[in-house]
């Protein structure tokens, strides 16, 4: 290994910071803690990534560990697999959600299956970071939510933090995981701030969390939609409705126990995600919760999400994406049963 002198250490005391900065701090901590951790991707070096998530890391850890790659996503993931086989723990950045598909084969065919194919002999501790979701007025291929396409694949774990603290800790845990983790970062929440406590004891990576207790209905979401659901719960409270909000945090595995416990209390469930509703994670949640909670449910599980259409041009995304009114409309429909 080349030696490096980090000019700035990762945080050691609780600090309020943006979600993007929290991931940056988490990567910094991982790079400090384990010489096998690598950061690789397009523009992650000098530029610090197009969202500045890797800002300053190459300066402090060198080009050997924070690696600007050729612009070839399959190559990025494919070489990360090779590095993992050699004992490294690569954290690769896919610049935008819509750019991951050139790497889809390497992720689905190679990364996901290699541990099983080797009968457990090799491990693939690769984290694939993907800024995802819309709401930032971007051009085509910069606003997609492809999490279901990865959750459908055995061998992958899929997570998405909703806030800075989770982003920090879930990244730590994803890097420590011996399984490949697809880490979906809610890009529209990159600038939202929250306190990150580097001494906290984090809960399990794949455990959902009740972020707001309620009695009338459960809203379940992850990533960028958690904040929206909290806003919806605030608005519903003004009408005297008590909504529970779950931050699922992990899409694969899904924490059905926490969802079930909530639904057994509230008897109603709405799943909210930006991804198209059709074959989305909400469909799987609806099916399984219906099995688990059939006699508790007062209404069918409803879903609010994107339409079965290509992600629209930016001027239409407000119509396409779940917003406060669409969530509240679903709440009305559920409570009308």
């Amino acid at each position: 290994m080349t030696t490096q002198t980090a000019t700035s250490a990762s945080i050691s005391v609780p600090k309020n910071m943006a979600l993007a900065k929290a991931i940056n701090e988490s990567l910094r901590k991982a790079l400090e803690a384990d010489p096998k951790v690598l950061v690789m991707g397009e523009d992650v070096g000098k530029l610090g990534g197009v969202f500045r998530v890797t800002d300053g890391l190459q300066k402090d850890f060198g080009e050997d560990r924070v690696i600007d790659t050729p612009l070839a996503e399959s190559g990025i993931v494919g070489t990360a697999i090779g590095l993992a086989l050699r004992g490294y723990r690569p954290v690769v950045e896919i610049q935008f959600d819509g750019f991951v598909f050139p790497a889809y084969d390497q992720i689905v065919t190679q990364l996901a299956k290699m541990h099983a194919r080797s009968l457990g002999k090799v491990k693939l501790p690769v984290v694939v970071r993907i800024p995802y979701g819309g709401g930032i007025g971007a051009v085509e291929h910069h606003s997609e939510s492809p999490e279901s396409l990865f959750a459908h694949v055995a061998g992958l774990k899929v997570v998405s933090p909703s806030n800075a603290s989770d982003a920090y800790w879930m990244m730590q845990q994803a890097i420590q995981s011996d399984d490949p983790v697809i880490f979906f970062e809610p890009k529209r929440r990159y600038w939202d701030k929250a306190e990150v406590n580097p001494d906290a004891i984090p809960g399990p990576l794949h455990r959902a969390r009740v972020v707001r207790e309620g009695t009338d209905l459960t809203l379940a979401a992850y990533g960028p939609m958690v904040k929206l659901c909290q806003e919806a719960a605030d608005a519903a409270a003004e009408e005297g409705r008590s909504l529970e909000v779950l931050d699922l945090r992990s899409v694969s595995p899904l924490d059905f126990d926490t969802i079930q416990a909530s639904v057994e209390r509230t008897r109603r469930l709405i799943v909210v995600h930006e991804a198209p509703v059709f074959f989305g994670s909400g469909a799987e949640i609806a099916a399984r919760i219906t099995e688990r909670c059939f006699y508790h449910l007062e209404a069918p599980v409803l879903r609010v999400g994107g339409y079965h259409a290509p992600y629209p041009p930016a001027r239409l995304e407000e119509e396409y994406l779940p917003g406060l009114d669409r969530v509240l409309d679903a709440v009305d429909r559920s409570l009308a049963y």
Partner: protein
Amino acid sequence: MTVESTAARKTTRRSAAGKTGSTGSKAAGTTGTRRATAKKTTGGSEPELVQLLTPEGKRVKNAQYDPFVADITDDELRGLYRDMVLTRRFDAEATSLQRQGELGLWASLLGQEAAQIGSGRATREDDYVFPTYREHGVAWCRGVDPTNLLGMFRGVNNGGWDPNSNNFHLYTIVIGSQTLHATGYAMGVAKDGADSAVIAYFGDGASSQGDVAEAFTFSAVYNAPVVFFCQNNQWAISEPTEKQTRVPLYQRAQGFGFPGVRVDGNDVLGCLAVTKWALERARRGEGPTLVEAYTYRMGAHTTSDDPTRYRHDDERVAWEAKDPIARLRSYLESETDTNEGFFAELEAESEALGRRVREVVRAMPDPDHFAIFENVYADGHALVDEERAQFAAYQASFADVDAEEGEER
């Protein structure tokens, strides 16, 4: 099939006017009879073929590559011969086992023994190999028990060996993907400051894959210690090489900024020398090399394939004259004191290997049902646990039925 043959048939193409080359006669890689006067249109230099041992078993001098086999002993030459013979025997046994229904499929390496044994024997113990699904000869050189290769073809696993035991990665079925893994692994070797090298196998068909181009790019940019060993066996199932490329494959390396060389893939000595040269370049930090081993797939693509639908017997016959094993035998018989006893013993060893492979495969048990859920994740996954439990309960539900039926009887 060669690139030059494409040019010969397509007269409308702009060609390098007036330049004709007897590519067939010099290059052992061409079929010779049909295109002795093929015109060259690649614009580059005429494909050069490294050959140390002619099809007739005559040693040819080569200033650049001779040093890499200069100190080879007669015993070592006999060792290479033994490797090739046993590999061919193993391969034939596997084909038979497929015909007998013991294997679901087999991808034969018949004809490619020299390319695989030559390159495989060039590797050092600490080097790492990333194969396709046909590198049975390389696996042999790496010390992988040949019977371990058969599990996936029998359908009892999807890769039956520990890659790190012999530094021989699992077979990769989706073509070309492993060239990126090899490149990443080589990047890691360089980061570790080790002087090991990595070798990635692929074929003429895979050369069209984007992943191979990306592997060339990444390895060149990072100067990774990797050798790309392309066995151009002329056929990607039914598609000849001319459906993959308009330039000789080894020349592609130039565009990526590293050397490429074409070696007679049926010349085990040539393959050994060229691969050693390439691996040593990698060890010295001089980056990647592309080796195109010009050879021929004598058999079908796999046991499911029917080559009579797309190629003629005369092509195969022409290549039979360049058989890798026959030419080394000629050399051993004429230039060394190898006696009949050696060949007789090897024949017996061959038969014993075939017998052992047969017995092991026939005794290979079906996997436990719960293997479905094994090793899906290293750290576990709640859904896999849940589904395993459901599956167990479902299986257990038959126990009651069985028990009741037992009582009734």
